[in-house]
């Protein structure tokens, strides 16, 4: 039941003083005076509190339970991030205040840039892009502008077939033609195919490493040499940097541009459509192309540098999503160099631990050690009349958020594979009981498949008809009264 359906005329939790305000408005700015109040729900404060408290109990998040959603890095977001981001010294500042008054925020952003430069091995950063795909677009626009100035015939971008769908979308948006590079049987880039495709019309290759199936790109050094020798640039999709912090730096591997999803590796809240941040780092020769303004430090004073003649322009207003950047800054400073290294090591060990426990029941897609996430197959279960979807739904009865299913997308079809990413946050006990649940479900599939086919049974919302919902889209809410 929505708050609107609970509305009873005359009840209220708060008075806006509508009549008084209207009298004032009519006197001074009559064109702004409203004729009537918008039909806001009318409920008592207690009804309001119960409504939202009950909604909150229906939610599932990392703070309530294990959330091994592969590819998404659902790590724990330390509460100190929130405390610091809510500090009035940050929240009461206005971006139109002059730089002298905003030194604290600019210093925080400058130091975050320095941290990210050190972690990635890049020379300069913009903090403006407001989400991962936005960062990809910024990075692709930088490469596009650079090639326009230096080698305009390079109009193509190579992207492995395993790449996340945002990669080809971002390259296309930036004006490139996308060419797909096939994967080899070990899950990496097919070097022969790359050799054939990498010619003087290619501006760059976009790579994710570890790649989208959770494997380290073994030939990265050879790829970098080949692409650079033939005049192309390397773009690093930082979606999976959580596996590499302190171990390897994209800049040292030969990447020229990187974007980082702060909500994954650096523990800022996951989207849900809310504000995000994806800083983009570049090597020195591309620094003039960064979006303006760039936060700089001159003689101990922090400032916004707008003087970048080759800039691709602005990617968002002001300095980007400062409150999100602040959380990442706090996370990095709290963890420190050793903490970040331990984080990546634990993320990799945890994924390999889960893989080892589950392999006898759900064989891994690739027979080699994984990085921070593992792809497991549920192919054999169709003989019991059960699909991966049913297994995932049943997992909810055991109190877990299911892993990512039917992903990665091995072209051309979505196979019966799931991607499990425990992250570094989880204890051995949590991973053990999660694996026990999946092993139990694999037994249930054989003995009592109906239990899976009708799952979930113990959740607030039981099995939904996804096909019907997708074929009959309802995009706006209508209450029972039809208003």
């Amino acid at each position, binding site marked *: 039941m929505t708050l609107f359906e609970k509305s009873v005329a005359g009840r209220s939790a708060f008075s806006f003083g509508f009549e008084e305000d209207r009298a004032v408005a009519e006197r001074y700015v009559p064109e702004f005076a409203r004729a009537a109040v918008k039909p806001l729900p009318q409920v008592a404060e207690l009804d309001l509190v119960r409504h939202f408290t009950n909604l909150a109990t229906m939610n599932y998040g990392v703070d309530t339970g294990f959330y091994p959603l592969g590819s998404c890095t659902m790590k724990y977001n330390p509460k100190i991030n929130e405390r610091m981001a809510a500090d009035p010294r940050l929240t009461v500042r206005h971006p139109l205040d002059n730089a002298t008054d905003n030194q604290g925020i600019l210093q925080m952003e400058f130091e975050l840039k320095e941290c990210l430069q050190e972690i990635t091995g890049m020379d300069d950063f913009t903090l403006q892009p407001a989400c991962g795909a936005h960062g990809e677009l910024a990075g692709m626009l930088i490469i596009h502008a650079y090639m326009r100035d230096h080698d305009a015939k390079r109009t193509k971008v190579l992207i492995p077939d395993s790449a996340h*769908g945002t990669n080809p979308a971002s390259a296309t948006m930036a004006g490139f033609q996308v060419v797909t590079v096939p994967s080899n049987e070990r899950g990496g880039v097919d070097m022969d195919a790359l050799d054939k495709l990498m010619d003087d019309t290619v501006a760059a290759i976009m790579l994710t490493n570890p790649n989208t199936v959770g494997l380290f790109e073994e030939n990265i050094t050879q790829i970098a040499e080949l692409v650079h020798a033939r005049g192309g640039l390397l773009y690093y999709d930082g979606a999976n940097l959580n596996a590499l912090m302190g171990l390897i730096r994209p800049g040292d591997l030969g990447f020229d541009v990187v974007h980082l999803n702060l909500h994954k590796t650096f523990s800022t809240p996951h989207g849900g459509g809310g504000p995000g941040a994806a800083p983009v780092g570049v090597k020195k020769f591309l620094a003039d192309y960064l979006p303006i303004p760039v936060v700089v430090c001159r003689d101990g004073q922090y400032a916004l540098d707008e003087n970048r003649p080759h800039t691709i322009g602005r990617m968002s207003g002001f300095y980007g999503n400062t409150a999100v950047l602040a959380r990442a800054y706090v996370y990095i400073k709290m963890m420190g160099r050793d903490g970040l290294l331990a984080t990546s090591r634990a993320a990799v060990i945890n994924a390999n631990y889960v893989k080892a426990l589950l392999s006898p029941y759900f064989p891994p897609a690739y027979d080699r050690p994984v990085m921070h996430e593992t792809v497991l197959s549920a192919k054999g279960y169709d003989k019991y009349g059960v699909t991966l979807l049913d297994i995932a739904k049943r997992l909810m009865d055991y109190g877990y958020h299911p892993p990512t299913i*039917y*992903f990665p*997308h091995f*072209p*051309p*079809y*979505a196979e019966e594979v799931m991607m499990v990413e425990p992250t570094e946050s989880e204890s051995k006990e949590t991973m053990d009981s999660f694996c026990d649940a999946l092993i139990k479900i694999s037994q249930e599939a054989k003995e009592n498949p109906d239990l899976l086919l009708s799952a979930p049974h113990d959740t607030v919302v039981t099995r939904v008809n*996804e*096909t019907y919902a*997708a*074929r009959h889209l309802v995009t706006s809410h209508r209450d029972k009264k039809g208003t």
Partner: protein
Amino acid sequence: MKIQSDARYAKSDEWVRVEGGVAFVGVSDYAQGKLGDVVFVGDISVGSTLKAGDLLTSVESVKAASDVYTPVSGKVLEVNHEVTAKPELLNSDAFGAGWLAKIELSNPDELNGLMSATDYAEYRKE
């Protein structure tokens, strides 16, 4: 898995059937089974000229979005609006009511490069 005997097949699971010089193009029954419940069939622009292997459209199922390529070159004469309105036709009748486009063949020789029904059955034997 159903296989239409008078159609020819691409490795990427599209079929083509020629009727009176016009080619009907769609995706195979094998493909629809792999896709799962199809919930959306993308637009195809009538009058556009395509080369064999070009992107024809994309279809979305509850699991994922997949690209569909034209197995033959030519001009798009007509599009099946029934299937864009009712994507479930692709699941229930991939070779019949689920056809996607009619194409005027610019190079009928290309048909020889596609698989016969027998070869395709062998290719997709599970």
